[in-house]
């Protein structure tokens, strides 16, 4: 969930009024936002920022000062702002600026959108905000620049038209931002900080994308880095050329739309850019940006009332939908919307219905007690586990609970078992959490290894899950409920643990037999498998001193484990 920092004065200017923390907190839920922190008055008024957390990952338009202010403003006034520079999909418009896309980028980064913004000199706060928006959009919405990346330029020093084409990473070179030397694309990926960070996107590609002006001067190397010559924007600049490239056209286009609306809200005039393709795109071969491409969405009043559990008129519902920024109308018993230019999050009528809810406000919906009668019950396994637990507690055992992820040392090496018998994670975060346990015994022995100062006798047990390889399962791995138990004191031995196993099974109502076992975790000749109708359901015995030594335990231990799933069936 993205967190953004908004400049306090810029935010209030765009919101149209000032607010204190309490009243801001009260309206932030209208944007699914939460107040995180607010610089106090010790910070200079122009520098003061408000930290806000945004919860809706489908509303990237809210991840900027202008976008958040817009949502809150529209929600309050019901006035939908007008952005006349949008060109509906499929319509042509004569533009001053053109980008010509070459066939050679089709495979690696096929789509581009862009526009030019002219307006007031860019302030420090605006530039900071813009860079933050760019980061949030490309990181969260653009999947770390994979599907969306953004570049900013000064249009006046560019020789138009701009060209977007493929390049041989070993042959072409330019001076990237934060550098003074000419570097090949390959060098940039290997040596430049941004190249190292985002190089993974291009590393397997033979042809890399490059944006150049008509004099063949490099603007940028999307999605990695801009050029130091034509790709630098500074405080005080009045004109901007903004391009968005990526692999998924609606996201690319929406990103350009969001940036255009933000700049328009801050007083810029937006001018269109036409992008020409030699190949078909979802939006055609000649596309003008910013473009309006979102289809209409509608919801019937009856389904709206049913989902929200509340009576309302069609007009009430329409007005509520409009307060979320969309253009609305009524057709019969349906509310129809043209989504706001900066939104593309209507996949299903329920998304519109949620907008209606948001536009009305959650406080308009009093909770209602549910009517349906259902019978509650614990799972049969939980019932069985609780019975087993009662027996263990009655025999003087303390219940323990452990994590299920662990390291090779505890689960395998110390237990002296085969590595192949424990489920392994292929992308562990650390060596300590690399395996999913196959037994409760390592946890119990872990307790013994750290509890030698606790008064003896120790009698401990755990009832919990283990994962076992099982070829018969679709996943090849079965989850089982196990009871593990361990007694540790100077006289702990086979007889004691056998007696406890017998007591447990007696009270669970199970007739069992025992058979000699050969499990290296236990002392040979002092271990027994538990058999239920001839089937092995568990094992108990004296823990092998080699295991105790590996765990650093100097007190005899006897115990075992029982598969409760097998007892249940």
């Amino acid at each position, binding site marked *: 969930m993205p967190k953004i920092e908004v400049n306090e004065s810029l935010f209030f200017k765009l919101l149209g009024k000032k607010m204190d923390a309490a009243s801001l907190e009260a309206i932030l*839920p209208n944007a699914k936002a939460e107040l995180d922190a607010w610089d106090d008055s010790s910070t200079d008024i122009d520098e003061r920022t408000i930290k806000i957390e945004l919860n809706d990952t489908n509303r990237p338009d809210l991840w900027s000062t202008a976008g958040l202010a817009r949502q809150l403003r529209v929600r309050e006034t019901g006035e939908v702002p007008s952005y006349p520079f949008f060109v509906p999909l499929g319509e042509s418009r004569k533009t001053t600026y053109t980008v010509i896309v070459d066939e050679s980028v089709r495979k690696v980064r096929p789509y581009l959108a862009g526009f030019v913004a002219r307006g007031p000199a860019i302030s420090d706060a605006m530039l900071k905000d813009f860079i933050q928006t760019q980061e949030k959009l490309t990181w969260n919405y653009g999947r770390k620049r994979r599907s969306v990346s953004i570049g900013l330029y000064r249009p006046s020093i560019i020789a138009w038209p701009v060209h977007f084409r493929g390049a041989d990473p070993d042959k072409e070179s330019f001076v990237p931002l934060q550098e003074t030397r000419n570097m090949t694309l390959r060098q940039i990926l290997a040596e430049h900080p941004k190249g190292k960070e985002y190089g993974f996107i291009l590393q397997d590609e033979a042809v890399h994308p490059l944006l150049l002006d008509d004099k063949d001067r490099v603007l940028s190397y999307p999605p990695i880095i801009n050029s130091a010559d034509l790709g630098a924007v500074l405080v005080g600049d009045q004109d901007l050329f903004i391009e968005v490239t990526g692999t998924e056209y609606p996201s690319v286009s929406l990103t350009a739309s969001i940036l255009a609306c933000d700049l328009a809200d801050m007083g810029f005039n937006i001018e269109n850019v036409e992008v020409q393709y030699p190949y078909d795109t979802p939006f055609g071969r000649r596309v003008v940006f910013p473009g309006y491409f979102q289809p209409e969405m509608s919801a019937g009043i009856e389904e709206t009332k049913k989902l929200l559990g509340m009576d309302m008129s069609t007009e009430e519902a329409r007005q509520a939908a409009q307060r979320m920024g969309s253009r609305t109308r009524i057709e019969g018993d349906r509310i129809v919307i043209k989504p706001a230019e900066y939104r593309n999050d209507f996949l299903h009528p329920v998304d519109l219905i949620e907008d209606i809810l948001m536009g009305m406000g*959650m406080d308009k919906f009093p909770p209602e007690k549910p009517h349906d009668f259902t019978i509650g019950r614990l799972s049969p396994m939980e019932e069985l586990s*609780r019975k087993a637990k009662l027996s263990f507690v009655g025999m003087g055992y303390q219940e323990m609970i452990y994590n299920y992820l662990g390291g090779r040392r505890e689960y395998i090496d110390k237990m002296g078992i085969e590595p192949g018998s424990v489920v392994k994670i292929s992308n562990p975060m650390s060596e300590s959490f690399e395996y999913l346990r196959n037994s409760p015994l390592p946890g119990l022995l872990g307790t013994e290894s750290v*509890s030698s100062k606790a008064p003896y*006798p120790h009698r401990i047990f755990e009832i919990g899950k283990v994962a076992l390889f099982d070829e018969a399962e679709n996943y090849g791995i079965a989850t089982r409920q196990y009871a593990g138990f361990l007694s540790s004191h100077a006289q702990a031995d086979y007889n004691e643990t056998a007696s406890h196993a017998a007591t447990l099974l007696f009270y669970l109502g199970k007739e069992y037999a025992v058979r000699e076992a050969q499990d290296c975790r236990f002392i040979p000749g002092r271990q027994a498998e538990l058999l239920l109708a001839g089937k092995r359901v568990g094992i108990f015995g004296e823990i092998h001193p080699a295991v105790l030594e590996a765990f650093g335990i100097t007190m005899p231990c006897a115990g075992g484990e029982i598969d409760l799933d097998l007892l249940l069936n």
Partner: protein
Amino acid sequence: MDAISVAKTLHPLEVRILLAYEPGSEIDGEILRSQLHFREGQENQTFSWLLAKGLIEEQGRTQSLFFELTALGREYADKGIPERRIFNFISKKGAARLPELAQELGLDQKTVGSAFGILSKEGALGMNEEKKASLLPGAVFPERMEKLGALIARALAADGILEEACLDAESLELVKSVAKKRGAQDAPFRVAERERVVYRLSQATAEQRQILKSLGVTGEELGALTPAMLESGAWKKGSFRPYNIGVTPARTIPGRKNPYVEFLESVKDKLVSLGFEEFDGNMVETEFWNSDALFMPQFHSARDIHDVYSIEKPSMAKFIEEPHLSKVAAAHENGGDTGSRGWNYHFDRDFTRRLILRSQGTVLSARQLPTAKVPGKYFGIVRCFRYDKVDATHLSDFYQTEGIVLGEDVNLRTLLGFLEMFAVEVAGAKEVKYVPGYFPFTEPSVEVHIKHPVLGWFELGGSGIFRPEVTKSLGIDVPVLAWGLGIDRMALMALGLNDLRELFSPDLESVRLRRALQ
């Protein structure tokens, strides 16, 4: 403590002293042993009790020596001192070489040497020309040695102890000559020092005597009730000594449930009481059930390689159940028959089989849907796995509490009704607040914040109505409410902890001493 309470806490040994001696009397251990038949050790313990109560005061202490028979001394008492045995041997069997004597008598050569020295000095034995020890003419056994033998016998009769004060000057000199303070194992006596402490009964004992007499306490009261007393009925003839109930009782180590598990069980019981049926499932799941079935697009940023744990081997499920696979894939690609536009991308049917550790309890809700009853309410408190750095607020595996409600009854307002029920019944909240939330698989979505009596305002959970892309793809046509509760903060509070790692602590003593729910 007043005098009567003091009297009630007196031990029978104390009572016997107080009743036997007038205030001002002087007593010591020897007196108690001989007159009141105290056993060794009892007197010192009783003195310390009486001192603590101010009933006696120390009058003075004197040091005295005593001599204690060693193991060797006891052997001498049994077989005779070496001098006597050598003298007798030679008297009967004639002259003998010293090594021969040592062998015959089972003595070491050094002992034989020194005994011969003493006997020859006393004029009893001499060494003849054959280098044999032989009786000198007219020799008798020396009187001094005779006396030593007698003293050893006397010591044996007196529990192995000879008191300095009970010996005349000659005997004392004799005993001292064969006694050692250290390394006494090769001497018949060990010298030791004893301190005799004399106590005087204080004036306060007058009142105690009075009270004891008026209460009829004799010091002969019954101690522990024994099976023998019950069989013989002896208990009827006496009264029971009252015990001091102010003493801290000994520690008992009981069998116990783990308090965290007990907390989880209490939440389960609450949910069952609200009509929910428990479900459970596999820890290892597929991308399909963990995310695809929940309509999270495969390109979603939360599905990156470093957000879920994947399984090394096997890495893929053999198959995904139909028709779920096809319907879910269609919902992703173009909405299928769910009324949705879909995410508009190519659904990867290999990726969806990838095996991972379940990262959210909602997996179980999705899995439950195809076979769920309508109306139906389900819940699970299950272990989930997250790619998080483990610290006080993050665990790599932890419990999530999740559930669903199916039925025509389900809408936004009944959803709020359920959240209110959870807030009040499960969390004990006094105030409840609802704000719009966001989850990829629900629309609308609501977060519930509660004011907890101790923790203050916090987010108790999230919920929403499953998107039709989720429910319709799994064959459900009624609305389904999905909810999740964050109960770990309440668990920490209930257990008096502030670090999530403590919930799974392996330390036995800390778990033993952890209190259960208040």
